[in-house]
């Protein structure tokens, strides 16, 4: 035993703090961003230990000139239509967000959560999956639905909790569910679905099926214990699942340093489990798609799980209940070095000669008109407090497959 402890300076607690707070000058100079095309692309069956570096870099495809470069660009082979669809999906999501935010301010709904700045992540990843695969999303992946051609009208009906909401007004707005579209019912409880995705993938493997699962989690939520459960199970049973981490730098008011602790990156978490872990530019549609496909292929070939960290930035508030200017400089999002995913994709299409500034302005207007038209349609059905709303008698349905006697009695007492 050391005897001279008393000579040591006293201990003190380290509490990580972001570089800047409101009033300060936004500064992302510590974020190391490798040039597009510079990170290697290992074969999908490479030994996880051999690609450890990928957890500490950032895979990028689109360079400053809007060109798709490097090994991750090569296998993509997207048609012009696919490229334009990608852009359109992101633009649609942004327009949708704008309208729904406004609707919330007009009290047509109680709550909304937007994707501003993160559109590429869910819109691109959707295209890495096949029909029948299942996403276990958080509340910030509506692009999975939009890029999967889920009807905007149905989404809005959910936001308005009106009579056509397929979830019958039971869920908080944005907590969509669509089995057909490979979109698992969203939970309000963080991280719980990460392990469920692993279980779903295990079930597919147990059944000798060919479907894979994709789990979704935010940077802050990786701190939750179910994240660990998911990694333990996925690693042990080599479950065919893609473990997505969306690092948008913030968890409500809490900067990513609190959840990340001393590890350099969130992707690094995967390394402790022998799971390949890749870090990707989340504002780069093509990089997200390329890495998503790589991971999906691994899963489908029964090579097991992959961790993907999408490096992006939450430009808006956490939700309509949040005002980020209270805890970070208002201009911080402008300083974010990975740019706007829509702008970058637009520039790529222009560089390819299949798009133009004019067509973009046109498309923007057209998309907004479409979204607004659908919104009218949804509002004609009803909004939170007006129009056709789900019947309160529905409240007692679906608690169980068959309504047990005590709920029948309660429904009777309620008089619905």
């Amino acid at each position, binding site marked *: 035993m050391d005897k001279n402890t008393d000579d040591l300076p006293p201990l003190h607690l380290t509490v990580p703090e972001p570089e800047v707070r409101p009033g300060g000058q936004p500064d992302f100079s510590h974020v190391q961003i490798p040039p597009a095309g510079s990170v290697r692309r290992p074969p999908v069956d490479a030994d996880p230990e051999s690609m450890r570096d990928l957890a500490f870099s950032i895979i990028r495809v689109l360079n400053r000139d809007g060109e798709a470069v490097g090994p991750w660009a090569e296998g993509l082979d997207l048609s012009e239509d696919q490229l334009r669809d990608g852009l359109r999906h992101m633009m649609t999501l942004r327009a949708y967000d704008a309208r729904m935010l406004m609707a919330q301010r007009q009290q047509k709904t109680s709550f909304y959560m937007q994707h501003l700045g993160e559109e590429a992540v869910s819109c691109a990843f959707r295209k890495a999956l096949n029909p029948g695969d299942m996403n276990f999303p958080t509340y910030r992946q509506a692009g999975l639905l939009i890029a999967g051609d889920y009807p905007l009208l149905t989404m809005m009906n959910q936001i308005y909790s009106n009579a056509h909401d397929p*979830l019958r007004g039971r869920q908080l707005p944005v907590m969509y569910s*669509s089995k057909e579209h490979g979109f698992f019912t969203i*939970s309000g*409880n963080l991280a*719980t679905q990460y392990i469920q995705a692993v279980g779903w993938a295990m079930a597919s493997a147990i059944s000798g099926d060919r479907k894979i699962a994709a789990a979704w989690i935010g940077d802050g939520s990786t701190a939750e214990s*179910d994240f*660990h459960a998911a990694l333990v199970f996925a690693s042990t049973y080599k479950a065919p699942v893609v473990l997505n981490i969306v690092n948008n730098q913030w968890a409500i008011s809490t900067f990513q340093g609190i959840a990340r602790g001393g590890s350099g990156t969130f992707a690094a978490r995967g390394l402790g489990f022998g799971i390949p872990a890749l870090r990707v530019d989340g504002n780069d549609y093509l990089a997200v798609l390329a890495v998503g496909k790589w991971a999906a292929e691994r899963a489908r070939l029964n090579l097991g799980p992959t961790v993907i960290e999408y490096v992006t930035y939450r430009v808006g508030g956490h939700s309509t209940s949040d005002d980020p200017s209270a805890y970070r400089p208002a201009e911080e999002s402008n300083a974010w070095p990975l740019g706007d995913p829509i702008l970058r994709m637009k520039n790529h299409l222009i560089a390819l000669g299949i798009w133009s500034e004019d067509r973009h302005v046109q498309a923007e207007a057209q998309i907004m008109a479409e979204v607004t038209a659908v919104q009218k349609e949804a509002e004609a059905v009803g909004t939170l407090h007006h129009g056709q709303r789900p019947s309160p008698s529905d409240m007692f349905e679906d608690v*169980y*497959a068959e309504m047990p006697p005590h709920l029948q009695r309660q429904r009777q007492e309620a008089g619905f």
Partner: protein
Amino acid sequence: MPKCRRIFSGSVRKRGSDMARMTMIEAIRDALDTAMGADERVVVFGEDVGYFGGVFRCTAGLQKKYGPTRCFDAPINESGIVGAGIGMAAYGLKPVVEIQFADYVYPAYDQIVSEAARLRYRSAGEFTCPMVVRMPTGGGIFGGQTHSQSPEALFTHVTGLKVVVPSNPHDAKGLLMSAIEDPDPVIFLEPKRLYNGPFDGHHDRPVSAWKSHDLGEVPEGHFTIPLGQAITRRPGRAVTVLTYGTMVHVALAAAEETGIDAEVIDLRTLMPLDLEAITASVRKTGRCLVLHEATLTSGFGAELAALVQQECFWTLEAPVRRVAGWDTPYPHVHEWSYFPGPARVGDALRELMEV
């Protein structure tokens, strides 16, 4: 064990000679085996349940018979076990997971309460969770505070769950098979002190075996007892005893020993509850004792007492009385002072009759 009339009301089974003598462990294993044999979607996993067959051996032999992807060991993470089970159930399998002791279910509590119980509701029926969560419960084996708990009330308060507690091998099989076939999540609590034989609380007497008990006779093959049906273990006119699990046997012993003509009702399923059976009996007897091993305050007995006084107020001749585990952790050395044994139950019956 006092003789008790067996009433098979509600049990759906092939009649005939297809009966076997089993312990409750064997009956549970038989239910799992039968279900796995009949339906490929049934998968069984949990801590030590694979090669070894579970610390209580309820899954012994299943891995060998059905292969390691149908019955396997899980990492020690109860939240992971239940969470993975939910994902599997949502995919379309029928997972039957084991929590090694009910005392260790709390790490999985969030997955059960926030997820399994509400999947159907929040997705308007699109995603469902036909899963069974089995766990040994109750004291009587000198297991101390972490191998003795009875957490049923923590599940009955959670809407969307069904809660089952068998009291014998016969029911254990029939109820477990119903639970596996149920479209919703079922919490299946197995009184571990009953695994190898009936137990009436006389810990100082020689242990008895299921093979010499009527309810150790278990139908072979497919056999279900519908969830939500109580059963009268002993008809009586003086007082109704509402109980379940191990306490059924204690109640029967106390009735025998006091000579009080108690009607002992084995609830079997706590949620959904067979309120009709309860009120019919209490209206007849006018007195009611509620009995469980779990701690008293906010135990399931509170709900029973609240319901009985509400439904049978005008026929009650005395307040509904509760006998339960004391409101302390289960103390290792004082197990038999803690356990609500036949003496305490008998005293309560006598006092109840004196009112």
